[in-house]
């Protein structure tokens, strides 16, 4: 069965955020299924739905994101999609 996770990126808007984040995903062979992005009072908010094969990969992905988080001063989190489904869907 397809397993999906939500990647959320929050931080100050600047050049290259999308490119850097998506590069990490591509390097980890993860397919982006949906992407949405807004700017709220200077704050960049991007939410992506990605396809993951197994959760072991997430550790590696988190490590890679850690680097960009520090470089661009962002907060990136990854959460399995189930948690949103169970909170918002009956």
């Amino acid at each position: 069965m397809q397993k999906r996770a939500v990647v959320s990126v929050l931080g100050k808007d600047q050049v290259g955020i999308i490119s850097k984040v998506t590069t990490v995903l591509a390097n980890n062979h993860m397919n982006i299924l949906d992407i949405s992005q807004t700017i709220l009072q200077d704050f960049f908010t991007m939410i992506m739905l990605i396809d993951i094969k197994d959760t072991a990969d997430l550790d590696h992905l988190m490590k890679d994101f850690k680097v960009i988080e520090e470089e661009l001063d962002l907060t990136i989190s990854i959460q399995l999609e189930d948690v949103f489904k169970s909170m918002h869907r009956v």
Partner: protein
Amino acid sequence: MAVAFTEIQETIRMVQMESLDIRTVTMGISLRDCADSDFKKVQENVYNKITTYAANLKPVAEQVEKEYGIPIINKRISITPIAEILGNHTPKEAVELAKTLDQAAKKVGVDFIGGFSALVHKGITKGDQTLLDALPEALSVTERVCASVSIGTTRTGINMDAVKQLGTIIKETAENTKDNSSIGCAKFVAFCNPVEDNPFMAGAFHGAGEGEAVLSVGVSGPGVVLNALKRYPDVDLGEVSDIIKKTAFKITRAGELLGREVAKRLDVPFGIMDLSLAPTNAMNDSVAEILEEIGLERVGTHGTIAALALMNDAVKKGGAMASSYVGGLSGAFIPVSEDNGMIKGIEDNSLTLSKLEAMTCVCSVGLDMIALTGDVSPETLSAIIADEAAIGMINKKTTAVRVIPVIGKTEGDTVEFGGLLGRAPVMGVNPFSSAKMIQRGGRIPAPLQALIN
């Protein structure tokens, strides 16, 4: 159906800005098969069983926490009330067993292990008495062992002989740990109508009706409820209840999902989901502030009980719809030292001990984490416990007392417990004596409410 962008944002906001968390995953472990006439053997059995069953509790919970992005703050263990396996062993040995539990907790990396307990609501067995005798020392020489004693139920009445002993036990524990703000008392709860599957400390134990091992979850989130209410400052109380209900529902669903996942990976059955609004000293993570948001200038003023009753009930309703197995204490906790709003209420002379007692009639537990003046007499402590137990007995609900007589401090001082336990203003007690009533001993008979067959 796909989840909408705004819903994803809502969850992220709850976690990152409003302190949504799973407060605890607690593994209940039965220790009944650990009893033995040879004490060394008991120690060995207990240590081995706990460290084997709970070996993966912490790593698994941490992994699940990472994958779902919702923090699981505490990993804990509850065990069979120790008095049940003490048999003919001595109080000295019981203290040694407490140390063994402490070591086992350290080994598996849990911050608290609950169940150094005795159920004496009707009578006291040999093993129960041994545990009671060992309590003051056990609480002061261990770090992570939590104890509780059940002294009353609706079906049995209140065992006042046990209540009498507890006053002395609490006082002695306070003396033993006086160099450390009498912190030993923070790990001890006296219960009326205790529940067997409570995952929250210090009152957790693995009851007689429970299985071999079970995983229960305690979810919290006063911050989330507070922020939800802040978005609707002018709605009427029916809608306030509805907002709390919906928020509680979402929190519970997240908790149940993670709890079941942890249970599945540990290969133990999922027990219950306890949705209790448990405050922490984090900014805005306060039950008192929810009551103030509903419309009180300061917690403790007139209307506090009505607001608390509304909130407690709404939390239960939301939680009950969200989980198939709601249990534990489910409702709202009102610990003083862990809630910045309660602390402020006392400092501003709005919240008093009597009001706190009254509040326990409509919330999930009782007098919790209240610092009392160090010169309080054991009889007064017993009388405080008796009052709370009577409230629980008559209202068919759980009530508890976790008070800390802080040796060397008097009314108006502040005491720092540190860490999760927070800080508390020291409260005075009624100066008139209750000694005669406590000295009488005996049992308060089961009330009319018990005769329902």
